[in-house]
């Protein structure tokens, strides 16, 4: 098992339901959901979820609002740690989590992978693609096939850039403007390390 950012998530948020509900509400600010919807989306019982939601509300992280005979929950965006917490979630269990799972079947052929562009910057709009860099021996078609399945779940298209290790290294060395720009910009790391690609030199193709 390769060390990924998902491991950080399970250390920081060991309670899986709490993690799920935080992603659901904090990464979709403005979204108001009632208990039964939340439990359906996270695959929990309403009773378990209700306890979780009550605690998060008491801690001030969620707003609660009564609408008719339903109780709606949403992110409390004015909480002092909201921006940081949402940032941590985005970089750990949010999109990254889903993508790590998606690339698991091809991960042995991947040396380095990270999200760049608007999603990594946190400036994505409703129509933004997820820009994903993949360095390794995996072929483009196989990467597309692996990623296609999660597009519906993410509500976004995933656009992979697949480089071989050699191609990536030579572009880096040559100061290619596209590569320089994505290396300078914000990234969400999924596999490998930026400065030391895993098993350097293995991939000579």
């Amino acid at each position, binding site marked *: 098992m390769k060390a990924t950012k998902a491991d950080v998530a399970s250390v920081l948020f060991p309670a899986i339901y709490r993690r799920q509900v935080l992603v659901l509400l904090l990464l979709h600010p403005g979204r108001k959901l009632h208990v039964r919807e939340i439990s359906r989306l996270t695959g929990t019982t309403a009773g378990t979820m209700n306890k979780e939601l009550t605690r998060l509300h008491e801690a001030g992280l969620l707003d609660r609002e009564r609408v008719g005979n339903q109780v709606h929950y949403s992110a409390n965006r004015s909480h002092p740690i909201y921006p940081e917490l949402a940032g941590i979630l985005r970089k750990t269990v949010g999109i990254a989590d889903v993508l790590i799972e998606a690339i698991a079947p091809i991960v042995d052929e991947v040396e380095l992978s990270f999200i760049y562009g608007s999603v990594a910057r946190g400036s994505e709009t409703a129509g933004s693609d997820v820009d994903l860099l993949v360095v390794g021996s995996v072929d483009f*078609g196989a990467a597309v096939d692996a990623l296609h399945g999660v597009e519906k779940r993410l509500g976004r298209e995933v656009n992979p850039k697949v480089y*071989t290790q050699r191609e990536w290294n030579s*572009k880096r060395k040559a100061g*290619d403007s*596209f590569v320089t720009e994505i290396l300078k910009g914000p990234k969400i790391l999924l596999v490998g390390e930026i400065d030391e690609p895993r098993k350097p030199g293995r991939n000579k193709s």
Partner: protein
Amino acid sequence: MSLENLVGISLEKVTPSKQTVSRLLEAASRHISDAKVEQVSMETRFGSAYTAIRMLADAGLHAHGYRTLASRPGHHQTAIQTLSHTFGLESAALIRLDALRRQRNVAEYEGDTVPRSALVECIRQAEVLSAVATNWLKANRPDLH
């Protein structure tokens, strides 16, 4: 969805002609050959292979009596999606073709570089599609081939 349902939305009707089908098929072959020229950039080679795919998709529509409304946004996407109706492509192939269309968009409009992997896949898909188109025409519309 049927092709007829898209008339006026993203397609219009045309009268199929053997000349047009042949012209598109021949142009697609030239584009595939050009995509293999090592002396030019990855982006140019990729663009050429992608154009071949689009021409083959257009040939499929033409053989059925349609063409895309080029004035509408997304006419490349339409041409690719209709391949399931025109040449009977499986959704697995459409997924890869559509991914290539998106690679082409970021290369063309945002100046992204094209990795070799995308070029290799684009040429492979163009060659497969070329064979599929030829076989389909032979079997279903020999009068147009």
